């Protein structure tokens, strides 16, 4: 049993866990941070923390979910330390989108659209839509009310659809 071996500190078991969860962990860190180098650092820290704390894992949740939550929490902590999650007003937050602007390469996949959202809005979309966090959990994570989290999610998704439509029309014009 890989987990039991890992809980005894077996490095080969840790490597198996990396092979199973490393990519998913990296994807999540990349979506939350929006920067590849930073995502690598976050995955690095997440695995070190997992290796230090796996002995306390009791199987209350599936291991993958437990580990992804650990990665998400580390990523949010990092964003908070960098003041990317400072509590600016909602209007000010979404005005940042215009400042960031569309991807110059004209990419229109979901990840490139996500990258155009401000950090807090992007984190809420990723955690709610892809990782299954509830609004209650997001409210606790960001120290805000559930209605605040719901408002940001709704506005962020609407903005993503507008950005997608805009990117699609630009592509058609180019053709």
């Amino acid at each position, binding site marked *: 049993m890989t987990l039991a071996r890992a809980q005894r*500190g077996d*490095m080969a078991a*840790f*490597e198996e866990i*990396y092979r199973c969860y*490393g*990519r998913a962990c*990296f*994807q999540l860190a*990349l979506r939350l941070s929006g920067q590849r180098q930073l*995502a*690598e650092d976050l*995955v*690095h820290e997440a*695995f*070190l923390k997992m*290796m230090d704390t796996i002995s306390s894992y009791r199987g209350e949740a599936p291991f993958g979910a437990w580990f992804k939550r650990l990665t998400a929490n580390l990523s949010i902590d990092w964003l908070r330390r960098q003041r990317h999650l400072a509590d600016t007003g909602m209007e000010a937050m979404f005005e940042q989108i215009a400042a960031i602007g569309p991807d110059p390469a004209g*990419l*229109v*996949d*979901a*990840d*490139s*659209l*996500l990258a155009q959202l401000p950090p807090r809005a992007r984190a809420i*979309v990723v955690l709610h*839509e*892809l990782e299954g966090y509830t609004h209650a959990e997001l409210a606790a994570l960001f120290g805000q009310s559930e209605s605040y989290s719901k408002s940001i999610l*709704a506005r962020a*998704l*609407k903005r*993503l*659809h507008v950005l*997608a439509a805009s990117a699609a029309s630009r592509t058609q014009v180019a053709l």
Partner: protein
Amino acid sequence: MNEHELNLRDLAARLPASATTHMPPADLWPRIAATHLARHRQRRGRRLAIAGGALALVAALAFTASTWRHAATPAIDWQARAQALELQLDALPTPAASEPLARLAETELARLDGNLQAAYDRGAPPRDLDPLWQRRSELLDALLSVRRQGHSSRI
């Protein structure tokens, strides 16, 4: 479009697959493993240092306690030893004439008993009495040895 109908999965389904690569770099695991092992070694070193320090402290405390106990209680030991030797001496037959060495020891014992009595009379503390009892014990030991030799040579 109604806001409630919006979700990321529907949006992503209508968009091309992600053009960016989401694979972590190939050397990420070796870096993680190296950092983990280095931290593990550091922690083990710290634990060993702490354990060594604790062991040294326990040894020092044990030594101090033993020294203190030893230093605090010898008077009782010497006094008890002197009394035990005296009983052994009384059990031997009294010699007709004392050997010169035995006479010396008896003289010294008489002088020492005077000192001991004087010390008790003036209420001397144990640290002043201890050396006197130790000396008495040594003299009785010597006297016992001489008497035993004399007794066995007569046999």
